[in-house]
């Protein structure tokens, strides 16, 4: 009888510990994801010191919740992998917001609801840029580099495209790996083929 009691109590203890560890693991992943997203944004927006004589203006965009791969992929009109060939000069619109255009040479389309020609360059309008010695920083905006290989989720704007969910909708391809952020994983770093498969599955489900 005494032995049975010990087994029951031991079993209960193990179950409680398992539950606590499971819960702790979940909390840890959520916490880590949040910190990774915040850190990625900081790195993205302010990697270089401000040159002397330049001024900085901040722009903050509030984004829709649930910036998950599923939502981003389903919202996008165009999902494409390609190479950044041109980063244009900054300009402001009639509302005073500053943008610059990024031109992407597509290599592979995953979703193309706007029927872009397979070999046509894609112009993407991006928040921020430097204009007349004034740096317009947009913390939530994606940042592109010349010749960068990218995997982007794009929405159709008035004339050109824009990155859906801003910073969450642009990933860099480096050494056959996709790098960026999303809400379910925090920092993304996975094999291009695995990521492609995931995106294709999401689009297929819709």
């Amino acid at each position: 009888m005494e032995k049975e009691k010990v087994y029951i109590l031991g079993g209960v203890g193990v179950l409680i510990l398992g539950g606590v560890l499971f819960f702790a693991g979940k909390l840890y992943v959520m916490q880590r994801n949040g910190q990774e997203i915040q850190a990625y944004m900081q790195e993205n927006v302010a990697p270089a010191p401000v040159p002397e004589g330049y001024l900085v203006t901040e722009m903050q965009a509030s984004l829709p919740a649930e910036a998950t791969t599923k939502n981003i992929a389903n919202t996008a009109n165009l999902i494409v992998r390609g190479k950044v060939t041109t980063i244009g000069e900054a300009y402001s619109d009639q509302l005073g917001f500053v943008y610059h255009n990024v031109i992407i040479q597509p290599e592979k389309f995953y979703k193309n609801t706007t029927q872009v020609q397979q070999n046509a360059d894609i112009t993407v309008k991006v928040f921020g840029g430097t204009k007349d010695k004034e740096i317009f920083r947009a913390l939530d905006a994606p940042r592109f580099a010349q010749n960068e290989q990218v995997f982007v989720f794009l929405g159709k704007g008035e004339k050109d495209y824009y990155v859906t969910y801003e910073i969450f909708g642009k990933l860099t391809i480096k050494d056959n790996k996709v790098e960026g952020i999303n809400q379910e994983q925090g920092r993304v770093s996975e094999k291009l083929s695995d990521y492609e498969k995931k995106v294709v599955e999401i689009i297929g489900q819709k």
Partner: protein
Amino acid sequence: MKHRLRWIIGSGFAIVLVMTTIAPVYAYKYEKQKWPTNSAGFYLDIAGWDPALIQGPASTWNNAGSPFRFKLKGHNVYKPNDGYSTIGRYTLTDTDAIAVTKGQPGSTVTEIDTIFNMKYGWGCCAESDLYDVRNVMTHEFGHWLVLGDLYNIFTDINKTMYGLIGKGETKKRSLHQDDINGINYIY
């Protein structure tokens, strides 16, 4: 046996505690700019919307325990860089942003404007398919105070300055203690 069970449960909770507090987190994020005085006047360009939808969030921050006050100055047709801090509503077709707030350069704030993106549907009363004006404006007024967006889904999701906003969401209307600490640190 009882001691062993207590030890197991105690260890579990200790692990939770360590795992969730192991890395530093932002309580609030201050972007190092400040209004020259403890007040900011704002103008409205929101024809068709009840001004109370903007005045409510202003009062929320005014009642946060700091001497800083937002004051409604009147109507102004939004023009960028005109010296009048204005809240407007326009369609921004080239972004998924729900609202955008833009400051001015320099160490002191001279003008800040907020534009609500009319690409989306807006509501007053927590309608599940609309973005709530008061919820979003309370967040944007945080940017007027130069508090930055926070993105930690674990530690920040209940704060007004959490950077992602859901339809029908109203929790940003009430300030979290960290938001209150933010304004009281700056002013």
